[in-house]
């Protein structure tokens, strides 16, 4: 690669449409424009909100491109045009957006990375429910399976994540006044996603995630604490022993199968690994060369989340897992629950039971297949 300085990424993180993410991003843009910075709007979604539209006054916009797909016309960000225009800063709304087929890249976050690599700073917006690692939790709470997700490492790459807060009460007032959506759409939104308890839980998740991002950045930054105190925010309290033995970094191994619940298992294992600052590996054991197609999708999903995925051949699955875990100095194994054995085979053991019996020196986490109460 050339020696271009990578652009800086700033994400305004909210918990629902209408909390004011785009407004805050535009406030930034206006401030930069006043300071004489060369800033353009790369993509902006007005949603017909007047106060937000007013904030774009005087800002240059790069024209969108129009694509035809399935007989309909779609407008998308024209990334190549922004690259040609090469501003210092670009405002790009809706980081989690999926482009219509026919675009150069599948996801808007990939477009944004292209801008960053060209040395353009980007200010963007997203909601916490679009984070890959929270997908199951969001579904569990709201009943909505969010399809447009952003891998956590993409958000972790941001130089700044800023939480945009509005209380659920105020948000519902805005919905009722029709500020966020037109009234018909508002009513449907209120009945479903915008239930106050849902909003409150999502808001808490956004607060916790922003705190997590702040903490990660502090951990990565060189320690220069004036008081000489420990740098990790959690440390420093008087308690028996809050840390693992020094030098023993946690290594988490996720056992992949073709089961549909593997996606949940992967997200959960990766999330725990991220929070514990542990290495994260995944393994799939194949008995012979066949039968890999069903698990191929899970493996590529895991790779997209930057998990180190390995394929191991072996006749005895539990033994292969345990041997791999020992060889890789794994401290914690993540597995899905085994299918219960039929009642006429009470003396047999499930894969989980066998791994538990063989790996007596490793922690084993059996991830629940969380369901929603009907």
């Amino acid at each position, binding site marked *: 690669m050339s020696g271009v300085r990578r652009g800086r990424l*700033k994400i305004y993180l909210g918990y629902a449409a209408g909390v004011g993410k785009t407004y805050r991003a535009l406030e930034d843009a206006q401030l930069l424009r006043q300071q004489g910075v060369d800033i353009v709007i790369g993509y902006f979604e007005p949603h017909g909100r007047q106060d937000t539209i007013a904030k774009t006054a005087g800002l240059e916009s790069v024209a969108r491109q129009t694509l035809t797909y399935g007989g309909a016309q779609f407008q998308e960000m024209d990334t190549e045009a922004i690259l040609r225009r090469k501003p210092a800063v670009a405002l790009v709304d809706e980081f989690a957006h999926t482009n219509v087929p026919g675009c150069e890249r599948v996801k808007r976050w990939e477009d944004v990375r292209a801008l960053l690599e060209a040395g353009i700073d980007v200010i963007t917006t997203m909601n916490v429910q679009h984070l890959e690692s929270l997908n199951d*939790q969001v579904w*569990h*709470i709201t009943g909505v399976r969010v399809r447009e997700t952003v891998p956590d490492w993409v958000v972790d790459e941001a130089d*700044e994540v*800023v*939480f945009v*807060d509005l*209380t659920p*009460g*105020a948000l519902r007032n805005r919905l009722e006044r029709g500020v966020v959506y037109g009234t018909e759409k508002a009513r449907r939104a209120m009945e479903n996603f915008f239930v106050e*308890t849902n909003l*409150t*839980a*999502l*808001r*808490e998740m956004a*607060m*916790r995630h*922003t*705190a997590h991002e*702040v903490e990660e*950045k*502090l951990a990565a*930054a060189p320690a220069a*604490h*004036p008081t000489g*105190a420990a740098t990790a*925010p*959690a440390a*420093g309290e008087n*308690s*028996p022993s*809050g*840390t*693992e033995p020094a030098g023993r970094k946690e290594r988490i191994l996720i056992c992949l199968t073709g089961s549909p619940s593997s996606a949940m298992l992967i997200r*959960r294992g990766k999330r725990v690994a991220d*929070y*514990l*600052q542990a290495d994260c590996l995944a393994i799939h054991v194949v008995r012979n060369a066949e039968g890999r197609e069903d698990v191929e999708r899970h493996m590529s999903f895991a790779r997209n989340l930057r998990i180190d995925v390995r394929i191991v051949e072996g006749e005895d699955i539990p033994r292969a897992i345990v041997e791999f875990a020992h060889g890789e100095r794994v401290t*914690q194994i993540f597995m899905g*629950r085994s299918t*219960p054995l039929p009642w006429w085979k*009470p003396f047999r*053991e499930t894969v*989980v*039971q066998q791994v*538990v*019996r063989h790996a*007596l*020196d*490793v*922690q*084993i*986490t*059996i991830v*629940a*297949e*969380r369901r929603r*109460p009907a």
Partner: protein
Amino acid sequence: MGRTGKGAPKKGSDPFPALVYPGNVPGITDRRPNPEDLLRRVQADERRERRGRLKVFLGYASRVGKSYRMFDEGRRRKQRGQDVVVGAVQGAVTPDVQEILSCLEVVPTLPEKHGGAEYRVIDMAALFRRHPGVCVIDGLAYFNPPGSRNPERWQDVEELLDRGISVLTAVNVQHIREKQDEVERIAGKRPFDSVPQAFLLEAEEIEVVDAPPEALIDRTDGVAPDSRRLGELRELALLLAADVVDRQLQEYLDSHGIAARWGAQERILVCLTPRSNARDMLKSGLRNKRRFHGALLVAYVEQSALPAEDRRNLDANLGLAREMEAEIHRLQGDDFVDTILDFAREQRITQLFLGHSNRGRGLRLRRNATERLIDAAEDFDIRLFPHPEGK
């Protein structure tokens, strides 16, 4: 269920104290509501109906933009027809705040000198006479001079609320009393004035005012504050807000009889048995609690006629759990698995820590407790810990 709780309330000024049962066992709590609790809740609801509504803007440093956001809300409410009056403004006002103040009615604070220090005191009498619908009070953590109506400004706000006046106010995390040890560790000094955390919990609404530390550096005219220190305070403010929101959500669900099995927070339950490898589990539980900023609970199922050695072991483990400030629960039930499952669901547990039942493979017709728990756990993960002898 068959659970009973025997416990003492948690220390501190907890506004929702755990219930006290006879036979105090220090550090052991139970949060099941009883009739008195429900009555208190109803009375609180009634009181709340007559009271003004409180909204708090929470920031992590001065110049983060709290005052602006608060006064801006005051202005927007006035535009929507509410009767808004400003009751207190902090000393130095930025031009954008000044612009907002020019279109709001202000009841000026009264200057008072005491012991060589100058104070600004809210003109309570004037506010009572004026009796607005909404009053905007900046600088919530201010002290009043000795001999004032109330020693601290947040108590003035309480009085306004009691008289049916809604209040918008702003405070920094540095001033939250329960957070000041941590603030002192981060910043090396401790603010003089403070507001109890219970006051935040009482607020109908709390809004976080977040901004990257760089933005503050810009606004301090080149005087670069320590960005690490700011980062740590920022994290503290976000987590405090998350805890307040979590608490309020739980209150809401409880009062509406909604049994939610989910939450935005990681909640870890360590199951102790007399012979479990408690030290490893508790250490790991504490580490997970800290990394996730979650909750650490410890439960054990009471067994009758426990051998003396096992009892000693259990007590030692409970002592360790107490040192770690875990929330300890003593459960009663005929069936270990059912008792643990009920409790875990009720407490919205996300991770359950268990010791391996270290037994070899043999002829057996019944599944052991661990296997039954794994089969039944639908809402939480189970983490099995090795036996020390297994290593």
